[in-house]
């Protein structure tokens, strides 16, 4: 796949294209990535360009493949899979853990107490905010706006501080365990979180003023990479990318897991405000507005959270699920994260398959990027918001 021989850029000549008016043009094949600032990792796009217009785009993935599924089978312990799950979508590790923990709890029929549930919800919603902040910031960066990126990171730091106090880690937490949590939250967790929620609301407005409503930003993202509703569903696109196409679909509401049915929040969808429904701007703004919904959920959860409860109460001593299989899906910041777990009654999983949202979302890229310009490619990749750790697993 990769050419290990040392040589200059490969010259791929396509035969001149006759446009019918006597002028013959030649297309250029160019490799965008795997080392490229805007591929959000090590994605390689094989672009065929007519001038600056993309006539064909083929994503090549796998540069970050470490076969987490094989690792899981070799771990000999279901609990030891959790750190590997963290490393899939490494900017939304909490959500990955939550999905895995819920899948295992359903398979083993474990019920966790309310305090655990509420902490999990708060954590995963905070993680959603952190992840969206990263997505928004890097999207701005792709468009050429540098400053919003750092503004987003300042806020993200605050979330990571909360995580660090609770779990000791800032990126890969191993915090949500099967049947409970690693440990209880510190005493000032509630006040820290409440303070963050309070300070974050004005920042969203600031972000909107600086980036979302910027004329150049809108020009660059509206009407670009339009993903129609039908195509999105057929490709299995999920998460904000799907909602950006105007589909009212959120697993937290439509297929509730954990205790999401207890909260009052809106499902944000794109409306095509600045251009066509399902363009890059719609996908972007869905993320911005979803952060506000996450804040709502966090506020409600903080209010309802019981003070008492042992977070280790339901953690099994030895994890040995009954034979059977389960497909369990949760809503991560990138979309539908599904775990297909087959148990054969032993202590290690027979098969763990993760249906990674980025993997599926990325597969729609060739369909929506043809006819775009090189600069639009960057915008489209950014608006799909992929994490290559999850695409390649």
């Amino acid at each position, binding site marked *: 796949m990769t050419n290990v021989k040392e040589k200059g850029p490969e010259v791929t000549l396509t035969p001149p294209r006759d446009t019918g008016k006597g002028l013959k043009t030649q297309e250029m094949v160019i490799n965008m990535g795997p080392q490229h600032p805007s591929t959000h990792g090590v994605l390689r796009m094989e672009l065929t360009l007519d001038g600056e217009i993309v006539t064909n785009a083929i994503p090549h993935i796998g540069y970050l493949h470490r076969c987490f599924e094989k690792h899981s089978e070799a771990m000999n312990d279901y609990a030891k899979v959790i750190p590997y799950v963290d490393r899939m979508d490494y900017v939304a590790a909490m959500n990955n853990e939550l999905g895995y923990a819920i899948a295992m709890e359903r*398979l083993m029929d474990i019920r966790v107490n309310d305090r655990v549930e509420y902490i999990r919800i708060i954590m995963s919603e905070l993680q959603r905010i952190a992840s969206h902040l990263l997505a928004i910031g890097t999207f701005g960066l792709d468009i050429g706006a540098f400053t919003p990126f750092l503004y987003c990171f300042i806020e993200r730091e605050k979330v990571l501080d909360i995580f660090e106090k609770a779990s000791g880690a800032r990126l890969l937490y191993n915090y949500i365990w099967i049947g409970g949590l690693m440990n209880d939250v510190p005493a000032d967790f509630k006040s820290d979180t409440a303070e963050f929620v309070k300070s974050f609301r004005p920042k969203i407005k600031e972000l909107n003023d600086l980036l979302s409503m910027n004329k150049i930003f809108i020009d660059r993202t509206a009407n670009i990479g339009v993903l129609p509703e039908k195509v999105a569903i057929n490709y299995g696109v999920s998460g904000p990318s799907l909602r950006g196409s105007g589909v009212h679909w959120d697993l937290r509401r439509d297929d509730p897991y954990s205790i999401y049915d207890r909260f009052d929040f809106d499902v944000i969808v794109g409306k095509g405000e600045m251009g066509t429904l399902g363009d890059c701007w719609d996908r972007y703004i869905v993320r911005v507005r979803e952060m506000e919904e996450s804040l709502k959920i966090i506020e409600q959860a903080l209010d309802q959270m019981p003070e008492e409860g042992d977070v280790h109460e339901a953690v099994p001593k030895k994890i040995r699920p009954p034979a*059977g299989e389960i*497909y369990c899906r949760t809503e991560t910041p990138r979309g539908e994260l*599904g775990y*297909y777990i087959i148990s054969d009654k032993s202590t290690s999983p027979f098969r763990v398959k993760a*249906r990674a949202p980025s993997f599926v979302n990325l*597969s*729609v890229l060739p369909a929506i990027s043809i006819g775009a310009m090189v600069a639009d490619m960057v915008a489209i990749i950014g608006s799909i918001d992929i994490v290559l750790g999850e695409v390649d697993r």
Partner: protein
Amino acid sequence: MKTTEELHQILSGQFGEEACELKADEKVAPWIIVKPDLIRDIAKYLRDEKGLRFDSLMCLSGVHYQKENELGVTYHLYSTTEKHKLTLKVIMPEDDAHLPTVEQIWKTADWHEREAYDMFGIRFDGHPDPRRILCPDDWEGYPLRKDYQVQEFYRGMKVEY
């Protein structure tokens, strides 16, 4: 909303009793095992038939049943309009694992089938782009098979560290 049992009845009415087999005794969720040759027709029927409308393929996973010397593909289907779920399974012998692609029915299957091919060596007939997806194109073996042995050298580089 239809349960797996009801769906099984519909399917066996349409394609015959022997085409699909209901497995409801296992824990958690029941599933239907279908014949490999028919998966494409069944998928099309499930997607287009009024009242079924499985418009979304949630997940497509390859499985290696080493004890039985079989390879399997599991389809998790969902209907966003009818709100029902269905698990389909296809079981094939290990030495001749191929089945029709459903790529034209759900585009989700495009990359997932490539992944199943890459990891398990299951061939999907009629797939438009049947390349490996995660491993390099000239990688040897199918990593997720239970009896997989890592090749020693890859293009002169030692694989085992």
